[in-house]
Structure formats: C-alpha cells, structure tokens
C-alpha cells in the first residue's frame, strides 16, 4: 500500500450536468445522432485508475471540456490531466483511453490522445508514445500489460441504464 505513487489523491464529484439529456428525436428511427464530445466522454469517464478503485472522472483525469470531436472531419482529440506532474502512470492511463476508443469508436476517426499542456513533467515523451501506432500495438502484445489495461477497462460502461425498453419487456 505504501508504494503508491499518489496515495491520497484529491477526489472530485461527478457533475450531474455532465449527463446527456434525452431529446425527443433520440427515439426517432430516421433522425441522425452525431458523435459528439459528450459521447466520447461517456466512453472514457468510468475507466478505473490503475492505482485506486476510482474512476478517471472522479480523479479529474478526464473532463468533458477537454475533449474535442469533429464528426464530419473524422477527428477526435482527448486531453487528460495526470493527478500529479510526476505520475508514472500517465502513459498507462493514456493507453487505457487509447484502447477503449480503439474498441468503441468507428475506425474512420483519427484519435489523438495527449497530456494536457503543462500538467506532466515529461508530457512530450508521453504524447509521443500514445500517438505512435506501432508502439501502442507493441505495448498490447505484452500480455501482462494487456491484462492491466483490461482490468482498468472492466469498469468502463457508457453510463447508461438501458434507455430503450427492451423488447422482452415491451
């Protein structure tokens, strides 16, 4: 327990205003719902921190405001904030976000993940690793690392109670 990098981090409340409000055309078969920053935030907010049984949202590592999505231009930019500037877990956290988005976003998107400017002492190195396709692929070849990533992703959900009545209940 005493070997944690940050044993006593600050905890943030998840904001209720960060929840998607249902619109009337959500149920309309023909309406087109664009992928937006809220949707990407919902995908990554509940990923677990590798050190604590807390979510990235609770640690303020991910914030809705730090996600930019351009659905038509097929681009996503996610910036995250390590809890402390010397956090050696930053790369791992970034990798978790990377894998989650690889699995959950359509492949047409080009996804950039980076440490928020000025929040980590070696942000350049971390950013370089996270956006290098081959290094990410190599990291995922490592079965131990993959297991850690999968564990952090095990808590990830998209924050939804089933919003459509399931056909069995209808």
């Amino acid at each position, binding site marked *: 327990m005493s070997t944690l990098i940050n044993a006593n981090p600050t905890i943030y409340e998840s904001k209720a205003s960060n929840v998607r409000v249902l619109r009337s055309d959500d149920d309309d078969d023909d309406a087109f719902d664009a992928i937006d920053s809220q*949707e990407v935030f919902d995908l990554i907010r509940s990923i677990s921190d590798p050190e604590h049984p807390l979510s990235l949202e609770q640690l303020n590592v991910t914030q809705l405001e730090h996600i930019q999505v351009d659905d038509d231009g097929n681009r996503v930019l996610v910036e995250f904030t390590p809890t402390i500037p010397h956090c050696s877990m930053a790369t791992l956290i970034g990798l978790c976000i990377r894998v989650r988005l690889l*699995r959950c976003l359509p492949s047409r998107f080009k996804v950039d993940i980076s440490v928020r400017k000025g929040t980590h002492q070696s942000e350049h190195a971390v950013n370089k690793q996270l956006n290098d396709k081959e290094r990410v692929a190599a990291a995922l070849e490592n079965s131990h690392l993959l297991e850690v990533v999968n564990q952090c992703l095990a808590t990830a959900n998209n924050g939804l109670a089933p919003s459509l009545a399931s056909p069995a209940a209808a």
Partner: protein
Amino acid sequence: MDRLISTFILSQTDSQEQADAAINDIVNDVGTSPMKLLLLVQGLGEYLTSEEAFVRSKATALLSTTLATLDQSKVNANAVGVLVDFYCDRLTDQACVPELLKGLLALSKYDKFTGDDCIKACKAVLALVNVQTYQQTARHTVFLFFDQAIRQYLKSMQTLGSEFVFGFIQCLDGEKDPRNLMLAFTLIKEIIQNFDIAQHVEDLFEVTFCYFPITFRPPPDDPYGITADHLKVGLRECLAATPYFAKFALPLLLEKLSSSSGSAKKDSMETIAACAPVYGSSALEPYSEELWNGLRNEIFHATNDDLEQIALNTLQVIATELSVGVSMGSNSDPIEKFLRPILSDCMAQLEKPELKLAKPSGRILKSCAMASDPACTAVTSATIPTLLSQYTSSDQSTRKKALLDVLLDFLDASRTLYGTAGPKETERDNDFITPLLTFKDRFFEIFTNAVLSSNEYNALRLAGIKGLHAMILLREFLSETEISYAVQYFVRIVLEDPDIEMQNEALKSLTSLANIMPSTVGAMALPELFEQLPDTPSEMEIDTVIPRRTPQYILNAVTKIALEPSLFAAVVPQVLEKLGKLARSGSNGNGDGDDGVVDPAYPIALLTSLLDLLRAKAELKHEDLPKYLDYLVPHLLGMCIFPTVTERDGPNVMKSHGILEVVGGITRVIMIHVDTAVQKTFVQAIFNIFVMGNLSVMANYDQNREKVPFTPLSATARESQQNTATLLATVITGCRQETALPVDDLEALTEALVNVAVTTPNAYQRQALSEIVATIVNKYNKGNCLNNFLTTKLIPRLQQTIQDESAVYEAREAALTTYSWLAKALVLSVNSIGYEMAGEMMKLFNVPRMGRVAADGFRIVIGEQADILTKETFAVRRLLYKQRFFNYCTPVLVQGFVGSSSSSSPGPSSSSNEVRHHFLVALSHVLRNIPKPILLTELPPLLPLLVHSLSFPDPELKASTIGTFQSVTKEAKELIAEHLGTLVPLLLQLTLPTGAAATSTPPASGTATPTTVGSTPTLMTGITATTTTSGAGATLNTMKVRVAALQCLGELAKDLPFTALVPYKQQVLKDLERVLDDKKRFVRREAVECRSLWFALSGNVSA
C-alpha cells in the same frame, strides 16, 4: 418372536427390505403387550452375548430400533430403569457402542426416564465412551443425547456440575464434522449459560476457539444445507456467550484481524462487534489502542465498501460499550482513552479535507459520535471548533465542500442518536439533547451561506441544502423561524435556481419534510407553486422576459410534495379550479364556442398529477382515497359529459381522448380501492347516467345546457358522447366480483353492447364496449350461467359477421376484435369455450385480410392489458391459465406453420409466406406471455420456428423473437450453444439497418459448426428461401430490432461457455465495428457494450 429375531440377525446386509420387515413385525408384536418386551430381550439373549462382535452389534441394533419406534406407553417404569442399567453397563463393548447410544437416546425421550437415569447414563457415556474414536453418526448421537439431557433434565444435570463440563470438552475435542459442530455450538451456549464453567474456562475456550476463523466450504451438492455462515454465526454466539472468554479471545481476534484473508478479517470484526457488549468495557479497555489500530487499517485501506462498513459498525459498538465503563483510579475514562488516538488520526487527515482519506475520517467520527451521548459530546467538543475555523479560513470551495460533508456526518450521527423531529418526539427525554446545539447558530449560518453562495461549484451549494435539511430533521434543534427560513430557501431554489441538481435536491428535501411537517411545507410551498401555473393557454406563451418554470416542472414538484392527506386535500380544489378556467377559456365562456381548441397537453398534465398522486397514495395505503369518489370523480365526469350535450357540440378540450384516459385512470384507481358497498352505490349512480342518460342527478347540472339527450352507448350518437363510454368502462372493469351490476337482464345488456360494438363506426367506443363485455363475461359468469347464452347467441352472432364475405372489411374486423376480447375473458377463467374461440381464430389465419387481425388478436387474448382484467381489477384468473393456453395452442400453431409451408409444393409463394407469418406472430404473442420455466421445457421443438421468425421482415416479430432468445439464453445454455451457427450470423445481420450487407460466413472451425435442425429439413429449406427473398428487398431493421439484436449477442457472451463462443469471436468483433457507426446513439451504445463483452471473452477463469 424367535423366528423374527433370527430372520433379522441372519439377514444379509444386502437384504435390507427383509430386515426392515422383520423389525416392523417385531415392533408390532412387542406393542401388543408389555410382556412381549421381556420376551424380546430373552430371545436376544444368546445373540447379545455372542462371540461375534457383528452379531452382538446387530442384536443391539434390533433392540435399540425397537425402543425408538415403539409406543412408549407399552413400556413400564421398571423396565425403563432396567434397560438404562443394561445399556450403561454394556457401553464397555466397543463394537456395540454406536447402537447402544441410539438406544440411550431413544430411552431418554421416554416419559418414564428419570433424572437419576439421566445422570447415570451421562456419567457412563463420559466415562466409557471415547467419543472421537467413533464415526460421525455415533458422535452425532452423543451430542443429540446431551442436547436432550440438558433440555429435559437440566436440574439433574446441573448436579454433575463441572464434571459434565470437563467431560463434554473431552468429547468435543477434535470434532470436525459440520453437522456435529452445529449441534455442539448450541450445546456450548447451553453449558455456558447453565453450568459452572469457572474451573474449565480456558479448556472450553480452546476447544471452541480452535474453529475460528471458519473456512468451511460446503460440498457442491450439499444435502445438509449447512453453510459457512451457519457455522460462523453458531461459533460467534458461543464466543459471545460469556465475559469469561474475553481475556483469551480478544488477543486472538486482534491477531486474526491482521490476517490477509478478507473473510477472516470480516469474521473477526463481526465477532468483536458481537462480543464487545458481553465482554464489557473493563475487558475491552486494555486493548482499546490495538482495536483502533486494527480497525483503522480496515477503514482507511478498505478493499471494499462492505468491509469498511463492518469495521465502522465494530468501531461504534466498541465505543458504545466503553462509554458505560467507569474510570479506574487516576486514569481517564475508557471512552476518552479510546477516542484520543482516533481523534488525532482523523483530525490529521482532515487538515486536507479534499483528499481521499478525509471521507473515511468523517465516517469514523460519525460512527464514534453515534455510539453514545458521552462519545458524541467528546467527539463534538474535540473536533467541531477546529473544523469550523478551518472552514472560515479556507477560500477553496472544494475544501469547504469537503468540510461540510464532515459536518453532515455529524448531523446524521446526531439524528440517529438523539432522534428525528416529528410527531413522535414526545417519548424522548428532554435532557437528552445533542451537543451540536452549542454550535447551532454557526451551523445554520455556514449551511445557509453555502446554499446562497453564487459559487460555480455546485457541490458546495448542494451540501448546503443537505445540511439545512439535516438540521430541520434533528429533534429540538432549529426554531420554527429558522425552519421556515430554510424551507423558504428550498422553495426559492425549486422555483428559481437554474441548476437541475440544485432543483432536485431542494425538491427532495421538501418532499421528505412534507411528511413530517405538512402544515409548514404546505403553507410555504403550495401557494408559490400554484402561483406559477398559468390560468389560460395564452398565459403560457407570453412572458418570455421573466423565465418561468414550465407547468410540467411545477406539476412534477406538486406531485412529489402533496402526498400527505391534508396537502392532497388542498391540492385537489386548486387543480380543479385551473382546469375549469382552461375548459371555459377554450370554449368562449359558454361552453359552446368554436374559437380554436386548447392544446390538451396542459390540462392532461394537471390531471395526470392528480392521477400520479392517487396512485402513490394507493401504494402507501392511504385511507383518504374513498372520499374522492364522491367529490373529485363526479366533478370530473361532469366536466367531460356536459360539453357533449350542448346544442352545437363544439370543440372542447375536455372531449379529447387524452383527457378521457386520465379521468378514467383517476376513476379506476379510486374505484379499485373502495369496498363492495361503496362500489355498488357508485355503479348504480353511473348506470343512471350512462345507461338511462339521466344527467339531472349530477352535481353542477344545468338544465338549460342539456339540449341533446345523452346516449353514449348508441352506435349513432355524437362521436363526443360515444367516446365517453370509456368512462363507463373504467367503472365496470374496476368492479369487484361481488359488486352486482344494477340490471335485471345481464344477457340482454351484454347482447345490446355487442351489437353496438360491431356496428359502431367509432373504434374508440368499440374498445370501451368490448372491455365492458369482456369484464361481464369474465366476472359475472358464476356457475357458467352465461355459457348457454354465449354459445347459442353471442358467439354465433359475432362469427356470422366475421365470416360474412359480403360485409365490409371494417365490420368484420370490428367483430373479430370484440371476439378476441370475449375469448380473453373466457381463457382467463379457463372456460373451454375460450379455447374453442382461440381455435376458430387460428382457422382465420389463411383468410385474406382477416389473418393478420386474428394473429394480432392473440395479443389481446393472452397478453396483459394495462388495467383490464388484471389481478388488481379483480378479474377471475384461474391458476396456470397461461400454461393451459400454451399447451392448447402451441401444437396447433406449429402444425399450422409446417402445414402451410408444405402445402405449397412449388416453393413458398408470397401468400403462403403471409399465412406462415401469421402463425409466427400468434406464436410470438403466446411465447412472450408464458412463464419462463414452461418456455424452457417446451423450447427445443420451437427453436427452428423462432430462428425462422428472424428472417421475416416484420420488425415487431423480429424484436419479440430476439427478446425470447435473450430471455432463455441463461437457462438454456446448451440448447442455444448448439444453434449458434445459425443464430450468430442472423443476429449480426439484424444489427445493421439494411441487414443485407452482412458478411457473415460460418466460422472456419469445422468441429464447432453445428447442424442440429436436421430433423426438420423442410424448415431449413424454408429459411434459405425467405432469407434470399427478403435479403434482396429493403429489409429495414428498426432501431428497436438493432438494439435487441445487440443485447441478445451481449447476453450470449455473458452466459455461454468460452469454448462455444470462440469460433465466432473474430467475426462478431469485425461485424460490430460497423455498428459502432450506426446513426442512432442508442444503437451505438449497445454496440459498445456488446463489443466490450466479446472483447472481454477469454479462456482464463478469472474471478
């Protein structure tokens, strides 16, 4: 007798029946006379003294079994004494001991068994039997015997004193069987309570504590039902049975607390909590520091919430116990000594209250403060001043918020300890008052400021609301003025604050306070809320300058707050007043204008708030419901009916279907909560209005406005009048079975109603009439008195119209709908006529245009309709009616499906496809409504049909079928796994909007490709045929179908074994990638969820 004895003795072990029969005969024979027992003993003589241990044992078994089965009145007191002596003496014969013990147990249950016999037997067992050398059953018998002895002959046993205690310890030492332990643990408790254990405390403790912590895991098919928890609780009760154990137990329990096993820790903490009140403060005090150290770790570094909560509870129990301790000599109070390190540890953490460990610190202080008045006082005086000054000196809002959370913990603790405000508070001692009272003004100021702060950090303001709310709930805390200030803040937030979370929290507080202090909340909140509701539709549109709450928002608040009877009574007239104004404004004041209709949304919302409140009140079993049947309901009925009899029948909002539905709902919820007598009176009044058309009996009746007679049950009346038939329907469908309808000739009424239902052009009226007819046939067919009428008149009347090919389609459909309702009424009561009707409906599947209506009619027949013929509305619903219907229909449906595909020889034409479609639709309605266990047993033969349903274009059918698959996956793993080869590609197709583009091919792995539908080749060819035809066209998979398919695929990943799924994994992941880009967000969410489940699949068995 001798013959029987020898039969038994000589019987081989494998002829158990023979032996049993012999024993039976012997018992019967011995039962005939007391002398026979002597004969039996004499007869056994030679065997009991035999050289062969086996024979002696068998002879003993015979005697013991006889004694156990025999009617004890046949044995006299003398004989019992002799037998006890005999058994005790023979305990030296080791081979016979198990059987001898059984005999002693049997004898100990005899009335003539005396206390002296008991002492004699116990002494003999303790002296002569080395219990742990025998097998489990024998040991079990010993414990059963002791149990019986202590229960029945406690006085005598106590004379044995510590001799028995010591002997018992010997017997128990080394016991391992869970069944024996369960019994032994009860005995230990009995012994501790009833015997002098002073000399053997340590021995008894050791022989008990050696089982701690329990690590027992029951065998997989455990026939005895003993779980680890049973043993844990049993052992815990022993350890907590006497304070003498304290000095031995506490060090060991503390040691186990530092163990690495979560379950051992949990057990230790729970055991400490159970023991603390028994051991007492003087025993706990020496360990107070170690106890805190042990528990601190569990709380600060808790691995899960459950363990943390247990640790907190334990802490609280210890603090409670130490609070009653007396100080020894110059030392401080035990509780102070205990709290000192806790307070310093927690306060150290709270110096940085926004960090992770601050929250558990707050919870620790809360648990301590909840323990007792002295503890609370100590904790409060040691911490609150510091926390308050920290708050004042801090300007960081996250830190302020965290400090408020700690103060909230204190308020909660106080409420638990000192009581909640409310009507029951008089029972409390008035001197017993929370130490927080000293700080009341500061608290009120701080929380008020937090609420009113214009801080962007919402959590701080939310904490302010929670704090004020918690203070109001504290008994004897805030003054009335302070309370009204706080309530006023809540009301302002509900009405004005832009933030949703703040609104919800304030509303939540008002809701909870409304129950405790209805008059305060009512006086301050309700007028303000109603003030915000517009009186006219025009008022709703203007006024964009001052932002106003929507009526929907205000009404939601009213619905939450006004549950309490006096508040509800205040709300009803206000809602009716608003409604009255609206109804008039839309109809030019005289109820006969036509200057545009009011949008019914707002009036419907007004009425829905009343309906929601009434439903919630019914749920809470409020008793003020019936009075609204005399006041609210007639008023609403009048408002709906009067506009339909004016001269011009102009537009009026009260005529809209939406309004009629809600008024019906209000009527129904009250109707089903009043007794038969009240129902009867009300039904009488309603018949007078709707059947006789006599409106003059109604309140607010104005003769001048009734220009047209009121005939809602006529096929030719005004549509607006016909529509009100639904109000009559809600009253009749809500009747109890005992509430007779006020008509002389029920058959004539029913027939008239059916005639109108079939001939009316108004589907809304037809629906109402069909519901009435169905209710009459279901509830009032007592002793099948209507059967004859049904079969000779009503059903032929309907069938004639249905079959009449010259009639217009609408008329035939109308008759068929009413027919379906009638069938439903009869199927529910398991009347055979109902089944025949369902059979007739199935014959219609191949009739053009009628087929689809008949198939959908199955939804009416077997599906649940809201509020119509439900259990809550007193319908006759016989046991297992769904199962019987299933058994009746399914073979016909399956046969019909197969028949209609094979009859068309050149391949499935479009018309035969349509017929088969009807069979599948009807089947899906049946399957959706049968209980799952039946579905599971009947599933295998239906599976090919279900798979087939997935390739029809009908989205409802597909969604329903996917739902069926999803619901059975967990229970029918093997069956579903066999069909994965067909199912997975089909489901993948259904996840795409067009379905046609699926690339799925069967997986490469040859062994896993299942071919199981071989028994029905015709079906398989049918599937291919339809798939190709539908694939070419634009098969549109609606959002509902796509979501269902994804959920079903996810269910497969959750429930089926890895080996079954692995051949499909890559294909599924690949195909789902495209679904991630679905245009609907709901579908994308499900796709993410489903894909994650398939990604997570791995062969590793991980916890």
